[in-house]
């Protein structure tokens, strides 16, 4: 990271509970079913989120994420296969590089890079993916809504 971002302290109490809305993009090979992915989100969050299936995490274009923020979503999640497990051999390697760059660009433009959550998930270990997503949602909650923050 060129820039050094510090997250706001997690102790800051929220007056009204802030429930983030997310745009979720997942690879079809590690997670074939969008509704199943939706079920992995915390309950209240899932009602306000959209979930879309991609053929590969490499299909994730920067536009998808940037547009989601433009539309007012508070976070963007990308779920792809673990390294070495890509159906197209290196799709997730490419995705990782592009998403790393996208995070960098978001930070330079004044958007918390943490808003873009990238998870390399094993279909055989859903619990840890679920937990990683839950932690990510907590981060977004501490960061606040996209529209009036950052």
């Amino acid at each position, binding site marked *: 990271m060129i820039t050094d971002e510090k997250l706001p302290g997690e102790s800051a109490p929220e007056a009204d509970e802030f429930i983030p809305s997310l745009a979720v993009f997942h690879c079809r090979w590690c997670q074939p079913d969008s509704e199943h992915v939706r079920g992995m989100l915390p309950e209240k969050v899932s009602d306000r989120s959209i979930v879309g299936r991609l053929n590969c995490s490499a299909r994730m274009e920067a536009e998808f994420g940037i*547009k989601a923020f433009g539309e007012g979503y508070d976070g963007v999640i990308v779920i792809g296969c673990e390294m*070495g*497990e890509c*159906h197209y051999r*290196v799709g997730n390697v490419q995705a990782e*590089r592009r998403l790393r*760059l996208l995070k*960098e660009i978001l930070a330079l433009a004044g958007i918390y890079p943490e808003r873009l959550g990238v998870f390399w998930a094993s279909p055989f270990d859903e619990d840890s993916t679920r937990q990683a997503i839950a932690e990510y949602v907590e981060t977004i909650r501490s960061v606040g809504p996209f529209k009036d923050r950052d």
Partner: protein
Amino acid sequence: MDEEQVSKEEQARKISRELIAGGKVDGVLALLEIRDHVVPHLFTEEKELEGLSVSGRYPVAGVAERLLHRWEDGKIAVLARGCDERHLIELGKKKSVDLDRIRIIGLACTIAEAKECHCVRPYPTEVEVGRSVGNVNYRDHEALSELINMDIHERREFWTKILDRCIKCYGCRNVCPLCNCEDCRLEETRWIRVGEIPPEYPSFHLIRAFHMADKCVGCFACQKACPMGIPLARLHQLIKEDLKSEYGFEAGRDVDEVSPLLVDPHAAAKVKGGRG
């Protein structure tokens, strides 16, 4: 005009004259001075060379590309500054120009010109006109560190305020020789709303920034073209530096250098095979 520029003009005319007279090229693409401004021009006759300018600024690579597209067996020489050469190399990577049909006449920038563009490499690989100013670095340290040192809220405020000035004239895109996709995302209503000024934050500018990340050669043309004075080059420069420090990649350096954002499944043997 100072002596340096006069002698550069002489050199450029001499080389062009020889190339045209020798029949090695069909024409020399350079800038023609008309009254107080310059236009890109294909010099095909020796007597035209009187009007050739070495002080004008215009990214000629896009003109060279279009010229060669329409003129299938043409061969041209291009009077190219460092950035023009890097543009041509990037276009060569995209197979958008045939570099074998281009003879580059390297033109070195003066110190004043280099400073104006905050250039870090104001000379082409082979200098034939003028003298290379050597390894200088006119990177805009002050403005860039100001941007880096802001916290994220300040940075968002900074950009939203500045980008609110955007009148969506597409000048930054149009002037850039490398921002030349036939179907432009910035014209698709799916991504950018039509008939709205300023364009919504952050879509318009970040989509362009991402698309240009591994192509931008830092010529500063977008920033100069912007009628609203948006410092676009700051964003591009920092993104370029990120790709350089992360992958050692620099756009426009070598026609065989592949962008780190493209991973070739056949070349990447190191990656463990997938599910077989």
